[in-house]
């Protein structure tokens, strides 16, 4: 889970700032469904609970969590690759 090989390009961005669980998960789930297999979704959230939530969600749905990043301003940034339809 790093960007060592150069920054990963995201194919779509989802803004979940200000949302409380379970809304970031539901929104991510919907957005991922709209992407093609292999594409990457960038999600920004501000709820500290969204980090464990998203980790549980990828474990269950078997999509790939490429990056979890705490941003300078206290928000969180996630990169998720869609691995299957």
């Amino acid at each position, binding site marked *: 889970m790093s960007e060592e090989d150069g920054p990963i390009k995201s194919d779509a961005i*989802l*803004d*979940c*700032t*200000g*949302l*409380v*669980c*379970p*809304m970031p*998960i*539901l*929104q991510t*789930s*919907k957005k991922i469904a709209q992407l093609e297999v292999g594409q990457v979704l960038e999600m*920004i959230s*501000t*709820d*500290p*609970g969204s980090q*464990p*939530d998203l980790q*549980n*969600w990828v*474990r*269950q*749905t078997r999509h790939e969590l490429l990056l979890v990043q705490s941003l*300078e*301003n*206290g*928000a969180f940034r996630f990169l998720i690759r869609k691995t299957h339809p």
Partner: protein
Amino acid sequence: MKEQLDTVFRKPLSLWSAALGLATANILLFAFEKPWTSADGLRNWGDWLLYTLGAPTPEELLSPLLYSGSVLNVGILAGALLSALLSDQFAVRMSTLMELAKGTVGGILMGLGAVLAMGCNIGGFVSAVSALSAAGFSMMLGLLIGAYLGLRYLVWEVDRFSRISIGSRMFLGSLSFTSRTWLVCCGLLAAGGAVAAYSQKGYSQRGVLLVFGLILGIILQRSRFCLVRAFREPFLTGESRMTQAAALSVGVSMLGFSILKSAGHRSLESFVFPAFWEGSFLGGIVFGIGMVLAGGCGVGALWRAGEGHVKLLFTTIAFALSTSIFRMLWQDSSLINHTGSMLFLPDRLGWPLSLLLALGVLLAWSLFAVWNEKARGFAA
């Protein structure tokens, strides 16, 4: 210095430690005065708010500074705020107006549910099940159904009207280390001052409750222990750890409560309310829908409000006002006699069978969650 503090306070508390810590606190609270409740403290805030706005005084209105449930809730809010500041997780998290409205509706539903069930999911479920009141179990069933219905609504809403829950971009994050340190020091001084003032005025018991609240708030914020998650997650991501931790916590406090009751330290009828089963079951459903819409139960709204979630602040205020108003309407109507009966399980089944049955229900709940996680039977 900053790095050291951050490593100590940023490390989350495990759900298992939180489960045991909360159960221990609940047992001590019962031994000290009465079990953990949240709705009655919120109702006191609602009564007081309505009274200051000019509504007629309810019969015996204690100041929120002296009402024990209120003092405990203030402690939880303040504890969560301090803990969020220490861990650099405090931020003003503003959501869209529609989300604020959903938080408000969730608070109103929870306020109504808590009146029907004679307690929220803490007083009416956690503490009631621990006290072996049958109403606790019927509320649990109601909460499960309510959480499922609430989640189905949210899934439908995101599918059809995804713009309701879009990002607000209004986020005031990350205070500087210096300002956080100052705020924490001021907060600790204020808490110490309040405890000293209580004991000086002859209310040292309230001071102890404030400290209990602070500890509960810190445990909740550091672990993100959440009963909404325990009820909702099996239907969402399928994750089962929170459900197992909640079952463990209730099971442990049940053993403690049973010792206190059977040894005669506390009356057998304590926390057995006449809400079995109609009131607690219906109240559980309404409360369950509300807590999923809001994204936190009564206590969950409190500690998340302390962490800076504006939506949950709206939920807390709506909960307080709604539970106060519905309680007044309820008491004036004849419906209050139709919420059900009091049933203390050991009166009907004896102690061994009651404990076995109650622990069996909790075990079945966590086994269902574990099975569901593997089989992904219900996960959305």
